[in-house]
């Protein structure tokens, strides 16, 4: 599975467009990590627990998108976009979408 955020796959011709695929996940913050992050909030700086959490969540969303693309018979996803939104004060939604295509 080739994932790319440009509209083409270099040196490969797109044979078929299969439509949009998407993957999302909503993650809530872990209690223990939340307290640590709260403390870190006083001195500022990187909240590595959150960076990790959001990275994992983004990977999961991407995996879901890939599963959907595979079920459509695609072998590449192009024009991929990421989006993050905070739903409530405790949770964030990670959303990935792109176009499933068949390339040779």
């Amino acid at each position, binding site marked *: 599975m080739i994932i790319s955020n440009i509209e083409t796959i270099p040196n490969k011709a797109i044979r078929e467009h299969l439509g949009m695929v998407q993957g999302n996940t909503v993650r809530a913050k872990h209690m223990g990590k939340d307290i640590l992050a709260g403390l870190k909030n006083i001195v*500022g700086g990187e909240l590595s627990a959150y960076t990790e959490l959001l990275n994992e969540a*983004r990977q999961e969303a991407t995996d879901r998108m890939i599963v959907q693309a595979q079920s459509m018979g695609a072998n590449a996803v192009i024009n991929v976009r990421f989006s993050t939104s905070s739903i409530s004060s405790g949770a964030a939604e990670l959303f990935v979408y792109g176009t499933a295509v068949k390339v040779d």
Partner: protein
Amino acid sequence: MEQLIIFLVLLTLGFGFGRLNERRHFASIRQREQQYSHLLCFSFRHLPQGCHSEGQLVTGSVVVSIDYFKRIAAGLRGLLGGRITAYETLVERARREAVLRMKAEAEQLGASKVINVKLETASVFKNAQETVGAVEVVAYGTALR
């Protein structure tokens, strides 16, 4: 009285450590920017001439929090209006760090450039007063050899 003391302690802690943290972070950002200066990032999405690699999605993300002192300072600034430098440095740090992490991933793949770089910013940590506590920045693009 006690509350005032706690407030002042937090304020000093935030001012001292926040400043130190930020200075260190900027120094490390500058150093790594030098290190990755051979890896070019472009925001256009067209393939350069004579490109023969497949291209792969690379991402970099970071969550950076603002310190207590700056949060109070930004709150006061909000009353008067104008540039809130406290937040400006926060997002600048986050963006540059995210781009650097993306470049680090591209370097591991042996890429020489990253095209169609997009930056996405989201505020992830809001407290009861709905003030911005931390921002998350994601940088992503297509790495080419």
